[in-house]
């Protein structure tokens, strides 16, 4: 049975809407205001990065944001505390590296996430083979765990990823780490089509997307798009919640116009 988050995303998709899921680094500046602004501007869900000391999947921008947030005293506990009383009105998906979860304990981390209002989780360093302990805690707690697939993921693994993933499936547009690219390329559409062929869960494509034109291009063969580094860069450059609202609204408008 589909969860609340998945139902929310499926309903929007089935109504013909292209999904837009921005990412921001938790703990960076007035981040809950940025989060609310993005939700208000038409995001269908928001991913919240919980900073880790060794973000091996992230490019320089998100690394810098993580370091800055950590220096400011951010930790999983402060993220959870900051979110209490914040109702963004859209599902929140945490994204972090497994050691923070492992250290606190899977069950306690999942419980704290639920209390803070999270409904999803992305752990990029936990492939299907290592999902067990986390899922044993997250699934009963009602946390949807989103899995990733990449351009060279073979068909048999693609099916496993789609079966195990909940909420949506995260298609990685390109071989590499997070970061803006001038061109996302054909690999994205090929992967989106392969994913759509084996699952009816929402398929969202991320990595390398920053402009409205790229968002439209990447969303075409999929159900929507994830935008991370472009958002975080704007926050690092000091953009206000209003400015970020305008950026997300521009992506929303482009996606709605097709």
């Amino acid at each position, binding site marked *: 049975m589909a969860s609340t988050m998945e139902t929310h995303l499926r309903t929007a998709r089935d109504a013909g809407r292209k999904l837009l899921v921005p990412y921001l680094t938790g703990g960076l500046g007035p981040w809950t205001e940025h989060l609310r602004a993005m939700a208000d501007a038409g995001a269908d869900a928001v991913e919240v990065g919980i900073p880790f000391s060794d973000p091996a999947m992230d490019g320089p921008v998100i690394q810098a944001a993580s370091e800055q947030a950590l220096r400011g005293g951010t930790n999983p506990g402060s993220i959870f505390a900051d979110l209490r009383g914040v109702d963004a009105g859209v599902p929140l998906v945490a994204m972090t590296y497994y050691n923070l979860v492992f250290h606190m304990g899977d069950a306690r981390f999942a419980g704290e996430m639920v209390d803070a209002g999270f409904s999803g989780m992305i752990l990029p360093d936990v492939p299907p*083979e*290592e999902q067990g302990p986390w899922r044993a805690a997250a699934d009963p707690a009602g946390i949807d765990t989103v899995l990733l697939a990449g351009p060279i993921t073979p068909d048999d693994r693609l099916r496993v990823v789609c079966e195990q993933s909940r909420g949506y499936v995260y298609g990685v547009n390109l071989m590499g780490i997070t970061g803006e690219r001038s061109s996302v390329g054909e690999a994205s559409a090929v992967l989106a089509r392969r994913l759509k062929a084996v699952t009816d869960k929402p398929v969202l494509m991320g990595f390398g997307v920053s402009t409205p034109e790229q968002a439209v291009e990447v969303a075409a063969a999929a159900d929507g798009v994830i935008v991370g580094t472009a958002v975080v860069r704007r926050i690092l450059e000091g953009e206000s919640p209003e400015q970020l609202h305008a950026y997300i609204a521009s992506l929303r408008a482009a996606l709605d116009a097709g």
Partner: protein
Amino acid sequence: MGDPDATGRFGRFGGRFVPETLMPACIELDAAFRDAWADPTFRAELDALLRDYAGRPSPLTECHRLSEELGVRVLLKREDLNHTGSHKINNVLGQALLTKRMGKTRLLAETGAGQHGVATATAAALMGFDCVVYMGEVDMERQKLNVFRMRLLGAEVRPASSDSRTLKDAVNEAMRDWVATVETSHYCLGSVMGPHPYPWMVRELHRVLGDEAREQCRALLGGADPDVVVACVGGGSNAAGIFSGFADTSAELVGVEPAGGAAVGGGVPGVVHGMTSFLKQDEWGQVEEAQSISAGLDYPGVGPEHAHLADIGRARYPNVTDQEVVDAFRTLTRTEGIIPALEPAHALAWVIREAPALAGRTVLINLSGRGDKDVAQIMDLLEGEG
């Protein structure tokens, strides 16, 4: 030492915590290594390289003057005499041959002290591969000579400038490169760490030094094994190599960590760089920076098999201070005319400190590398002392 289970675990440690984009490469590497390791042609080719290019077998040296001074019979496995100056070449030649067998053309490596980077750059030159080595900015400064050697050998040395700017950050950078280039690049990981199959594969590639040492000790000791086998441990590759020769004997196994980077001695289980192991971390699980005089041991984690050996009590992992290491470095130089690298000087430092308790026993130390690279650093340090 045993093989890991199907999930790449030694007891409760190990595993394969990598992004989905790297899983096909890890699976391919596991299959390729199993296939090659069982292939007599591959083994013969590697053995020939180890003999004719790297200079194996390395000798076993009895330290007469040091033994007399300590009251402990000290034997050294002379990995410092290998081509490129350390044990690292054993692993690198194996992985380079495997790279060729997998049809890849580019080698990636991380390096701390630069010994693994130099070995990788050397193998790349030998086999005509492109080579990129990631090295922490702090380490590039304290190991300038090795940076120059790598560049002479044709490798590109790229600085890791995030966080602590040491070995752990170089691993992160190498993994980021690998995620983007996995179809053409092999990540030539330099220690018994990382995702499966690396901890197991790298140990197997260093087993040669343990097997040699065991035979050499038995020849010298009238068929007996040493009482204690000691090696320094950062990630733990040279220790894994020498321990693998003695794990099924009654020899006591001791891995010596730096006091400022004691993962077994001061860490708790965690997950980073693809593996579950002991890891120095804060109350939230953020990885802590290691602080050691030796760039090669400046690592907050440890190979998962070492975590397992500690868990089951087969090996123990004490630690020594930077000052004890410098003293040991000078002692071996003065008594035996052998300038050790700062990394194996940790093993020596433990033996010197524990000499009263070891009196009358025979101790084998893996002298994993030579100290040429460290001489400038020691010169600055001793001049600073006046």
